């Protein structure tokens, strides 16, 4: 579903070349739920932006759902859902319901399918109370649920989430996690999730990839990840060891 082959992206910053991502290769199969970890500035967001075609890779190849994202961006958009936790993709001044209606037209979702999907999402994400409220007046938790619904109205095969639980309280977080778990289990949607909240990883991800300085430092199951450190270590300890390089293999 997602294939990267020696993909790289560099930026010119004040005349020197900075490699945000370099020689990154991995494959994600349909139906997987993958956690994508890495310290700040490791290249997580750059990877995600290459996956949805926002950034053009400067080397290597990227394929999502069989398409080159930077060349087939608008075609791919119909098959991928994207959520940025730090930033809404909804229209700031429009009520949530209007944003959804616009999305229906942009993605050309037929009316009947849209209705049933929205009813289902509104139910599972509990949107009813604030669906008529302009996005700017929503709380962070409400907005995130709205963003998730917006990313799923066109029933994408792949869902890419960039820190979807950032800044959320424990109850909101639990709600989002349950929702994602069900989405992956019941619909078979492939999910790639970046987060700094290791609780997300423990509860959701069978597979974990860890990126540092723009290249992959770990790729394996949650069990493999825990096995890189002495017994009884918490997941925080394990990840901290990998981030600081002391446990990197």
């Amino acid at each position, binding site marked *: 579903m997602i294939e990267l082959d020696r993909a790289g992206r560099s*930026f010119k910053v004040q005349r020197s070349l900075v490699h945000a991502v370099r020689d990154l290769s991995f494959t994600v199969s349909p139906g997987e739920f993958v956690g994508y970890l890495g310290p700040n*500035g490791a290249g997580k*967001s750059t990877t995600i*932006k290459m996956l*949805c*075609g*926002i*950034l*053009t890779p400067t080397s290597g190849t990227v394929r999502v759902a069989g398409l080159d994202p*930077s060349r087939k*961006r*608008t*075609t791919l*958009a*119909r098959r*991928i859902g*994207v959520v*940025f936790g*730090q*930033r*809404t*993709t909804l*229209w700031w*001044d*429009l009520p949530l319901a*209007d944003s959804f*209606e*616009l999305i229906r*037209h*942009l*993605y*050309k979702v037929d009316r009947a399918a849209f209705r049933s999907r929205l009813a289902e999402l509104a139910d599972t994400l509990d949107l009813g109370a604030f669906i008529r409220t302009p996005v700017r007046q929503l709380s962070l938790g409400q907005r995130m649920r709205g963003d998730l619904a917006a990313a799923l109205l066109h029933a994408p095969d792949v869902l890419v989430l*960039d820190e979807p639980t950032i800044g959320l309280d424990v109850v909101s977080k639990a709600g989002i996690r349950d929702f994602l778990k069900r989405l992956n289990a019941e619909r078979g949607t492939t999910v790639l999730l970046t987060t700094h909240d290791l609780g997300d990883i423990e509860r959701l991800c069978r597979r974990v990839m860890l990126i540092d300085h723009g290249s992959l430092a770990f790729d394996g199951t949650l069990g493999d990840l825990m096995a890189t450190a002495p017994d009884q270590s918490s997941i925080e300890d394990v990840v901290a060891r990998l981030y600081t390089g002391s446990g990197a293999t």
Partner: protein
Amino acid sequence: MVSIYARLAWTWTRAAAAYPGSFVLMIVLGFATTALDVAVILVVFANTTTLAGFSRDEVLFLYGTASLAFTVCDMFVSNIDRVSQHIKAGTFDTFLIRPVSAWLQLCADRFNANRIGRVLQAGLVLGYAVAALDLDWRRAWMIPVMVITGIVIFSALWTLAGAVQFVLTDAPELVNAFTYGGHQLTQYPLSIYARDLVRSVTYVLPLAFVNWQPGLYALGRDDPLGTPEFMRFLGPAAALALALAAALAWRQGIRHYRSTGS
């Protein structure tokens, strides 16, 4: 494409209609401020009967054709000059994850229906000039052609202005010189300007084809600067070439977009 634009535009219009007072006031103000340009022309002609050999109604004809093309673009395309704001605010990513071209979404972004006031004003001036001028009707076909040519040229200029902002993110105003500046320039017969300027807006930035060259044909006049007759008909070709250049520049801009941190 048109239906998506209409849908986006309608959504923004409905959002703006929540403040009906401001909406009506902006239409009236738009009408009034552009009417000032006409007032200037009328003041000039209160003191003289011709400007570079052109009568008042001929100048109003040139003003009307250029302004109609410009204000239509101002209403439907000009929102694209907010590219740099979106890049800086980090909101540009959002346009790129939708299955519709970013160009179309940006043009429709915060669509402002109250700009219709300016379009109406330009249309009225053109209507008056055509009625007053007693034009040769065999040459009148050029009028719609030149308005459409003008729309393509100004749209291409705005697209170029947007594309340049991917590089000059910190200097979005620089490009206004070419869009708004181009409109100011085309309001008068080009023969009042220095010859080098006229050459550059004929052969480099094809503003002369918005209304000057085809306008001379519609008015049945020779070019006071002596360009040959066939130049009157090159407008559509010049517009197409500029549109192509703009499309390529825009594509390059998107491919070189760097996004923001996080």
